[in-house]
């Protein structure tokens, strides 16, 4: 069993190594890469089956490979584990991952660097699996930064484009800011618990910190006038880490730019898996978060604010992928808000369904882009439903799922979050999230209308349907998007039960009225979005303004720019740092620090010239100096003897 769970991350890693060192041909690369991920999926299934065969309380397998760091009291094993939470994450990663790998074979066909692409993809899956399988924060962090690296590599995959390089670097650095907080959180955890392990290794060794969060109950640090609970400090730092990775306010600015990468990458990394890392982290360390009332409030509000901000931004985008990107940010906001409200199961549930239908949407969008010869501006699309029937149908299924229409997957998971919000008294949060869900339906209606309805506005290309290797994964995912909700249906709540050993949650009440209102609202706004953009289709010009701009003006522009947050950062933080760095490098260092050093040199140079000036060449001057010396020496010696 221990060996088996090691196989899960190792299979993709072997694929990575093969792709780096052995494989040189495109066809083999795609097959091997997809093959190992499919194999990993199968192994995961087996592992899940074996896990299910164990009594619920014992459903955790821990395996230590070697002592990773051992210095002083600081000891971290290289250890992975497999428990119900990990299992669902691993299933999502390998399952959706496998489909995306297969899809990529078609999508990336003909690209000159396709081998490298699959290598990156395999490495990503490896790292993502380490992220969810790690049994300590440090190994989780390895996966955490590892997926960041792969994200960097894949966003910048078409590095010839300037925007790709910039977006890649931006993604990495913004993530690093969150990671810095993550590091501090790890230090704090280690300081207060003496270990970074989540759980004990099951062999009578040290127990993990998640199992004894009560150790720090009531412990405070900080200055006397403003002490804070240790649990708050740690969880807040983790939250910052999560806002980076899961693209939450105020660090979500990297995700829209990240769309510069190949579309399957957006589907895998920036929709289904990597960006959910933050949510996973919060769910995993749920014990720490629930220990801090303060942090939970922050988490909920950050999630809600992000959901709303990104939802509005998604409404005003023209780029087919940027709509989905902001939508992803918005949906992640839902999950984070759910975590903040303590609805971890709902968050994970939404994470899973979102992983499926957002991957579907991205892949379908990729199919659109593929079929329109790399067109991404929706103003140049229109009327594609006839040319791309399968893509169209799957896209609509995805859109409906995202909009939360009964009985698709998205409905159940979103509803669970909303129901939790209302039943636990988080009314303001509920209002924001509900509003956002309406916006979601609206912008999906808008997008479907712009892309698939009306007439083709740019006649410069001939749209065509994608090959089967791309459409088959779409169909599979579409099926998933339709029936995915089944895993945690209100009456069955399989997922809640499955996760109970980890998250210790009981199933919530199903609120039929809420479900009814939400569905009606979603259908209504979704139709509205579709209606506005089909009827006004004639007004949409390539490079022109949105029809809604007429009514909302600057507000629309603000939405289009995601409320200028990115620009604010550019002008304050980035520009400020660049100016400071330039000042230090061009002025302070050469003239200040080095100037001081050289000044010492010049000082002695001046003294030296003084000595030189005294040496006049006149022998009588020498005699005079001599005589002065005589008087001094005599004076001093006789003064001593007085």
């Amino acid at each position, binding site marked *: 069993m221990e060996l088996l769970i090691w196989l899960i991350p190792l299979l993709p890693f072997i694929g990575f190594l093969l792709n780096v060192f052995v494989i040189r041909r495109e066809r083999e690369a795609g097959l091997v890469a997809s093959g190992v991920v499919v194999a990993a999926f199968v192994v995961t299934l087996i592992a899940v089956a074996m896990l299910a065969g164990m009594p619920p309380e014992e459903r955790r397998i821990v395996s230590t490979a070697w002592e990773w760091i051992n210095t002083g009291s600081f000891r971290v094993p290289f250890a992975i584990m497999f428990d119900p939470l990990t299992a669902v994450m691993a299933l999502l990663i390998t399952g959706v991952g496998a489909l995306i790998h297969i899809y990529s074979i078609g999508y990336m066909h003909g690209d000159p660097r396709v081998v490298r692409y699959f290598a990156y993809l395999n490495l990503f899956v490896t790292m993502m699996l380490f992220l969810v399988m790690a049994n300590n924060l440090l190994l989780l962090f390895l996966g955490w930064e590892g997926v960041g690296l792969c994200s960097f590599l894949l966003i910048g995959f078409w590095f010839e484009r300037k925007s790709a390089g910039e977006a890649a670097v931006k993604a990495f650095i913004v993530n690093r800011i969150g990671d810095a907080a993550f590091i501090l959180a790890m230090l704090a955890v280690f300081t207060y618990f003496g270990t970074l392990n989540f759980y004990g290794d099951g062999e009578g060794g040290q127990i993990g910190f998640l199992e004894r969060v009560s150790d720090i109950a009531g412990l405070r640090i900080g200055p006397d006038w403003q002490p804070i609970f240790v649990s708050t400090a740690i969880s807040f730092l983790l939250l910052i880490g999560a806002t980076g990775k899961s693209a939450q306010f105020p660090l979500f600015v990297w995700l829209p730019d990240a769309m510069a990468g190949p579309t399957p990458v957006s589907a895998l990394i920036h929709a289904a898996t990597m960006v959910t890392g933050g949510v996973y982290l919060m769910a995993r360390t749920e014990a720490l978060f629930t220990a801090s009332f303060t942090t939970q409030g922050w988490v909920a509000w950050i999630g809600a604010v992000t959901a709303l901000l990104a939802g509005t931004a998604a409404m005003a985008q023209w780029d087919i992928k940027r709509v989905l990107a902001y939508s992803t940010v918005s949906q992640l906001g839902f999950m984070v808000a759910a975590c903040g409200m303590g609805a971890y199961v709902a968050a994970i549930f939404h994470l899973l369904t979102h992983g499926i239908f957002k991957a579907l949407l991205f892949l379908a969008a990729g199919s659109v882009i593929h079929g329109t010869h790399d067109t991404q501006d929706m103003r140049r699309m229109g009327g594609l439903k006839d040319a791309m029937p399968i893509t169209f149908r799957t896209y609509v299924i995805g859109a409906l799922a995202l909009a939360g229409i009964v009985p698709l997957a998205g409905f159940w998971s979103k509803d669970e979050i909303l129901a939790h919000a209302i039943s636990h008294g988080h009314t303001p949060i509920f209002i924001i999230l509900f509003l956002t869900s309406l916006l979601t339906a609206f912008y999906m209606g808008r997008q479907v209308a712009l892309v698939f309805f009306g007439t083709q506005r740019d006649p410069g290309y001939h749209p065509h349907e994608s090959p089967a290797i791309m459409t088959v994964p779409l169909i599979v995912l579409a099926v998933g998007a339709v029936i995915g909700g089944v895993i945690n249906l209100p009456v069955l709540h399989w997922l809640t039960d499955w996760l109970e050993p980890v998250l210790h949650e009981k199933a919530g009440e199903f609120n039929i009225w809420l479900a009814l209102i939400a569905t009606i609202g979603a259908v209504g706004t979704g139709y509205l979005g579709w209606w506005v953009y089909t009827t006004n289709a004639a007004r949409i010009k390539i490079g022109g303004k949105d029809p809604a701009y007429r009514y909302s003006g600057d507000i629309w522009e603000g939405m289009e720019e995601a409320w200028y947050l990115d620009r604010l950062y550019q002008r304050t933080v980035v520009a400020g740092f660049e100016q400071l760095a330039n000042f230090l490098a061009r002025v302070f260092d050469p003239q200040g620090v080095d100037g001081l050093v050289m000044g010492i040199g010049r000082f002695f140079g001046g003294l030296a010239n003084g000595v*030189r000036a005294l*040496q*006049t*060449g*006149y*022998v*009588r001057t020498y*005699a*005079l100096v001599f*005589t002065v010396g005589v008087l001094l020496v005599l004076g001093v010696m006789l003064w001593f003897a007085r």
Partner: protein
Amino acid sequence: MVPTSYYILLSAILFTIGVLGVLLRRNAIVVFMSVELMLNAANLALVAFAREQLGVEAQVLVFFVITVAAAEVAVGLALLVAIFRTKRTADVDEVSTLKG
């Protein structure tokens, strides 16, 4: 008998005159003479002390000093002649090419 201190005072005055001569006069010959004056002031002090202390060393030294002075002056005058040949001057301040 004249007290030794008188001799010493005189020798000190002579010595100081010698020093001032070296410092103030520009003619090389006068400078040499001033140095001689210093040496002879010392000689005076030596013999005066020799008389007081009844020691023989000081008197021996005086002979040495006279000899050395002669040698120095011999070398000095030779040099002076050499310099005078090239530079046509006996002014010590004119001979100041080496400096800095």
